[in-house]
């Protein structure tokens, strides 16, 4: 009997791997390429002791600790130690995102599409599809780990060692696999793939923020944040294998719960209960706009709360970040209190400017998702009847775009506002909230242009619309890490986020603001033109 639960798992695993070869290849190429390319450059960028000393000072500042994790290596510093400090938390984020993608794709999405039902109707064990999804996750993460380790060995940075290279690779693999199992569990709890993805990102976001807060205040507490385990590997330093054991133990425990939940529930049902709906539509649900708004309502609220919480979390460490006297008491004596206060504010404003990019990129995500839904909802067949009604394509298009605008603008605004409110509250000599809100006004046009680029793809090249994700992903990479990698200026300006100056430190450049906004409007119109003049997608 036991056997019948798992039959054909191996075949399904091979089938999943074969079917997913393209996304697997792209993720592998992206992750391993990034790791290897960065490792290859590090000896060049941080070859001198003075370069090393200055980057270490930067990395030890609370602002950088909040973004990248604490710098724990001891002098004499090596490029490898800097590499580990800069890359670990960030790469952890990337592999976790990859794991969420594959975990949801092979479980809840299959179920939503009705494919799971077909598979289960064959001589396939009840748990086999889930086992296959788990094995696929394990294999993909192992590939990431092994290839990354080999890339690091190949790069051979000064100060690196074989143990550290493999610890880095396998640490990433275990970390990704662990977050994959979280997602598998969420796929059992939620009643559709969208819900499973949102829940997974909620967990990832919460753990990331928890790590940030403990890192800035008390690094020992980071052990409790799960996310922080990846820092505790102490790569190229003590090379600690314990966190990998912890990750695997937690993954196994979560898998146990997942398989238990999967055995308990019916196909296509979630464990979280679904309530009966309304008998009649509310007066507010009366047209395409209110329909799109209603459909996006829950995710809109989640994104807004998420961005606000992210803003508040970053803002709450402003006091620590801007306390230069604590970091360097000699400077305070030399400069005097007033000058130190000015310096403190500059540090904070610089930090806020970096964070603003993050809010702009993260705020773009819900806006882009909404615009992309114009096509994905179409593919699901939901819009077919709408087109047969007294609804023009212009109205439908503008409904999705306006809801997307609200989504993106509010998310960016609440992120910056959260940072401003918590930031001013945590500082002894606070900045004004309006000063920090410059970041919102400054980055707003960048968000609009990104939305415009997405709309153009949606309208003109619906089959390639997923390519629009390159814009925010490259944006994060070039602006978040670009400075540390010594990227040339033109490379940073490939993305619209790079066209904005360092607000709120600098003044808003109104010229840039207006031409970017104008460009966004033109892009949205081009997208509409394409959408209005082509065949709609069929499922």
């Amino acid at each position, binding site marked *: 009997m036991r056997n019948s639960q798992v039959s054909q798992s191996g075949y399904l695993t091979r089938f999943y791997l074969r079917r997913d070869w393209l996304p697997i290849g792209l993720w592998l190429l992206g992750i391993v390429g990034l790791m290897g390319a960065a490792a290859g450059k590090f000896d060049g960028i941080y070859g001198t002791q003075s370069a090393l000393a200055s980057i270490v000072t930067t990395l030890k500042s609370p602002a950088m600790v909040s973004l990248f994790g604490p710098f724990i290596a001891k002098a004499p510093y090596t490029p490898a130690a800097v590499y580990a400090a800069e890359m670990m938390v960030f790469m952890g984020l990337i592999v976790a995102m990859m794991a969420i993608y594959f975990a949801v794709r092979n479980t809840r999405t299959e179920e939503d599409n009705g494919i799971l039902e077909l598979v289960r109707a064959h001589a396939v064990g009840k748990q086999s599809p889930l086992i296959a999804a788990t094995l696929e996750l394990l294999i993909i993460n192992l590939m990431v780990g092994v290839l990354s380790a080999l890339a690091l060995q190949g790069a051979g940075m000064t100060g690196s060692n074989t143990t550290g290279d493999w610890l880095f690779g396998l640490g990433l693999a275990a970390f990704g696999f662990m977050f994959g199992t979280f997602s598998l569990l969420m796929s059992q709890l939620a009643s559709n793939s969208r819900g499973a993805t949102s829940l997974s990102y909620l967990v990832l976001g919460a753990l990331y923020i928890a790590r940030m807060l403990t890192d800035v205040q008390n690094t020992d507490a980071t052990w409790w944040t799960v996310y922080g385990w990846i820092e505790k590997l102490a790569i190229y330093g003590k090379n600690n294998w314990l966190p990998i054991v912890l990750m695997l133990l937690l993954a196994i425990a979560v898998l146990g719960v997942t398989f238990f939940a999967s055995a308990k529930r019916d196909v296509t049902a979630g464990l979280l209960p679904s309530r009966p709906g309304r008998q009649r*539509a509310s007066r507010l649900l*009366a047209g395409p706009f209110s329909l799109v708004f209603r459909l996006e309502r829950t995710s809109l609220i989640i994104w807004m709360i998420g961005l606000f919480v992210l803003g508040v979390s970053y803002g709450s460490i402003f006091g620590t970040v801007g306390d230069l006297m604590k970091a360097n008491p000699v400077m305070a004596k030399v400069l005097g209190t007033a000058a130190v206060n000015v310096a403190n504010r500059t540090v904070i404003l610089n930090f806020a400017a970096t964070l603003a990019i993050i809010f702009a990129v993260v705020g773009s995500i819900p806006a882009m998702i909404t615009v992309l839904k114009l096509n994905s909802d179409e593919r699901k067949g939901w819009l077919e009847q709408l087109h*047969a009604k007294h609804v023009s394509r212009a109205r439908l298009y503008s409904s999705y775009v306006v809801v997307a605008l609200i989504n993106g603008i509010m998310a960016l605004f609440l992120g910056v506002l959260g940072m401003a409110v918590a930031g001013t509250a945590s500082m002894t000599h606070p900045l004004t909230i309006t000063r920090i809100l410059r970041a919102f006004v400054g980055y707003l046009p960048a968000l609009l242009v990104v939305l415009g680029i997405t709309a153009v793809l949606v309208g003109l090249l619906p089959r390639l619309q997923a390519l629009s994700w390159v814009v925010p992903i490259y944006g994060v990479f070039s602006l978040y890490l670009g400075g540390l990698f010594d990227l040339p200026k033109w490379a940073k300006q490939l993305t619209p986020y790079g066209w904005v100056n360092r607000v709120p430190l600098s003044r808003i450049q109104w010229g840039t603001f207006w031409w970017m906004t104008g460009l966004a409007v033109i892009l949205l119109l081009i997208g509409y033109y394409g959408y209005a003049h082509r065949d709609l997608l069929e499922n």
Partner: protein
Amino acid sequence: MANTVLEIKHLQKKFGKFQALKDITFDVKEGEVFGFIGPNGAGKSTTIRVLLGILRGTGGKATIFGQDVWRDSVKIHARLAYVPGDVYLWPNLSGGEIIDLFLKLNQQKHTAKTDALIKQFELDPTKKARTYSKGNRQKVALIAAFSTDADFYIFDEPTSGLDPLMEEIFQQNVLALKKQGKSILLSSHILSEVERMCDRIGIIRDGRIIETGTLDDMRHLTRTVITVKTQENLADFAQLPGVHNFKIDERTTNKASFAVDSESIGAIMVALAPRQIVSLQSTPPTLEDLFLRYYNRDQEVSDHAK
């Protein structure tokens, strides 16, 4: 002569290199129920999607209410109701909400008729669409369409997921619309349904309309099956022109069954009379026979072509 509601002339649609619609020509008159039949993949749904302005035709012309289906789609849709073959609904809205939304989008109100339809079709409108079966999703679309006061109704295989009782209710509602003088385009696989309700029929195959007309018109084009018992021998009938599939009943003497071309039926009757008929049964061709004949004829043609 009644006004023409839908007019299609030599409509074509290409998807890349694939020519989905080669030559579609037919029309639907006011107050008429037009049956649109053809095998899977013949182009029924593609035709309908072009009519709705979802796809853009690559050749020919199609108008509804005299207006171009692509350019004036929104104006047309104000007076039109449509039920697709595969109904997909927003999973987190309830059936009741979706029905109301569909009505509001066409400036219609939720009336007593809507409630009556919900009751008639036995739909629980408070359930979320994700819990509905295919049949129940179809009911949502049907209820919204039937309670819409439109001039032209398009149904694309609307009963494929309904049980026989619900199918009957669907037919009653279509016949009620017909009584009110509404025009209807009904694409269907259920030939008895088409036979019962449609005034005229168009048969599509491989992206072409191969026949249009009333059922009676088409019957003339086909064969009647005759089973006859006579006093005298019938074996020589097999050679008569217009007689097909001649079969002698092995168990009964002088009993045979065969198919006769409509135009030869008079001559056959004349030939039969002197043989002293004991019993005679004639079965008019069903739509199914018609359909199969068209289907096979085309296949024969393509077989010969090889």
